[in-house]
């Protein structure tokens, strides 16, 4: 896809670090840059929402009712006369937060699990990775639905439940990285200096495996956000009075015949985010030259 590596040689002669090189390559991938820009804008909007939202989150105007986009309400209003743009901004906070936090949970578990298995090796490795194999075969979607039913629908559990099922691939990637790195001299040097395994993993192994970790993280966030939308759509995820893009889409779908904009704009917000993350992930994979992180 990205065939610009050769042109970077002149810069490499002046001493280009791995990260600078990757950034230069990423910058040439227009779709990836577009994705990065959209994401940055969305994240900034999500952070600033309480200050910049055009209307109050719970502000209803029952007399107004559902109106199509207008100058006063750029994206229209819902059946309670609530401003759709405001709803989408607050919903985006939740959807993005689930995406980032649940992915962070998955990262921590996956990296620790994979690094320990790969570093210790032997029987410990065999047992740990066999467990991952078994978990891989479980129908996780169904399990999350089950968890949400059993323990009630609260946000913290949603983060943890989604994070707890998305770490498996991360663990596999981390393990194979650590297994390769372990053979290298600088790790042997660290061992002979008497550093503890925990320090070696933290200071030497994880930083050297950052490429695949970053790529896989970027590709995990969209699947986590999809999972949240899926659960909220079924009524098993985010609950009112809070809202998320999945929930807004589910409301929008109910009244799409009369008020199509209520489906259109939350849907566009979700699709645009998913596109951006996927483009950025693909771009990063090419830029950092990571293989077999996906597909």
């Amino acid at each position, binding site marked *: 896809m990205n065939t610009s590596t050769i042109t970077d040689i002149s810069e490499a002669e002046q001493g280009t670090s791995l990260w600078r090189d990757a950034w230069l390559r990423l910058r040439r991938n227009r779709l990836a840059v577009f994705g990065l820009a959209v994401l940055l804008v969305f994240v900034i909007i999500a952070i600033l929402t309480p200050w910049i939202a055009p209307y109050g989150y719970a502000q209803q105007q029952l007399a107004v009712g559902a109106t199509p986009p207008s100058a006063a309400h750029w994206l229209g209003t819902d059946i309670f006369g609530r401003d759709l743009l405001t709803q989408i901004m607050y919903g985006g906070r939740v959807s993005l937060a689930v995406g980032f936090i649940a992915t962070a949970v998955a990262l921590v578990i996956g990296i620790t699990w994979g690094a320990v298995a790969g570093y210790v090796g032997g029987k410990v490795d065999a047992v740990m990775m066999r467990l991952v*194999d*078994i978990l891989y*075969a*479980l*129908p996780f*979607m*169904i*399990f999350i*639905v*089950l*968890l*949400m*039913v*059993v*323990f*009630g629908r609260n946000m913290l559990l949603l983060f943890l439940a989604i994070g707890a099922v998305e770490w498996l691939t991360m663990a596999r990637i981390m393990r194979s990285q650590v297994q390769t790195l372990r053979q290298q001299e600088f790790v042997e040097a660290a061992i002979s200096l008497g550093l503890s395994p925990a320090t070696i993993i933290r200071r030497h192994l994880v930083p050297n495996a950052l490429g695949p970790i970053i790529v896989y993280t970027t590709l995990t966030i*969209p699947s986590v956000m*999809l999972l949240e*939308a*899926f659960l909220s*759509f*079924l*009524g*098993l995820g985010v609950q009112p009075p809070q809202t998320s893009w*999945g929930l807004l*889409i*589910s409301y*929008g*779908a109910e009244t*799409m*015949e009369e008020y*199509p904009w209520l*489906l259109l704009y939350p*849907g566009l917000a*979700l*699709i645009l985010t*998913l*596109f951006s993350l*996927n483009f950025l992930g693909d771009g990063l994979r090419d830029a950092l030259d990571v293989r077999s992180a996906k*597909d």
Partner: protein
Amino acid sequence: MWRFIGFRVLQSIPVLLVVITVTFFLVRIAPGGPFSGEKAVIPEVKAALEAQYRLNLPMFEQYTAYLGDLARGDLGPSFKYPGRSVNELIAAGFPVTAELGLYALLVAIGIGAIAGVIAALRPNTAQDYVPMSVAMIGICVPSLLMGPILILVFGIYLEWLPVSGWGDMPGDKILPAITLGSTYAAYIARLSRAGMLEVMSQDYIRTARAKGLPEWRVVTGHALRGGMIPVVAFLGPAFAGLLSGSFVVETIFQIPGLGRFYVQAAFNRDYTMILGATVFLATLIVVFNLLSDILAAWMNPRLRSQFGD
């Protein structure tokens, strides 16, 4: 080959046991008993009900008794619909879900594999970019959006197809099948493109060309089998995704399938139904993972030879 199959079958047994055990205890520790809340029940009636559902026994005995029932294929009675067993509910819903899943799979493989092969034949040309861009859209538009959009366009604006139901009107199965299949069509297109690209650069393809075979014979006779291995290996996970995807699609199109029953059971806290359906779905998924692995191994001699035959 037989050793490989035996190994994979043995590997599936602990998976199923874990599923059954975890689900059973999760459901049992769920807050709120099935008969608490709604209205005061006479103690004798409550005792009789608890005996019927074996809730009067210690937890571990309930578990072993449930395993015993499962071994006989009995999933127990439903909490919510007294007098109906979980088996009956599954028997009513599953054929619908299976039919929907089958059509969706046909959509996914049909469109996906053709698009992927076409793209791989001329990589980095319009013939590659167009189908792959469409595939990217398919991946990024989830079924919960695809369904309503298709309904709006083909059902409401164009009035070409019915927008809900299953088998009530001609053509009402088309939109659900496309909705459920679209994401997987996109993944299969990407996988088959990658698989074909890899195979097309192999020596045996060059040999086939050197023999003077026409290009279409090289593709259909030689490249397809190897190029489709990633797709076949993906079928297992895709099957699991189709089953959980049917939750959303059956809800959108009001299809009386197992997915909709499952979501309703989740809302009704019909614990025996949830437990039974989870065990049933998990078993199906494990079996399909197994079949897809075996099929992929059968198509890929290198994988077979790892097991010494």
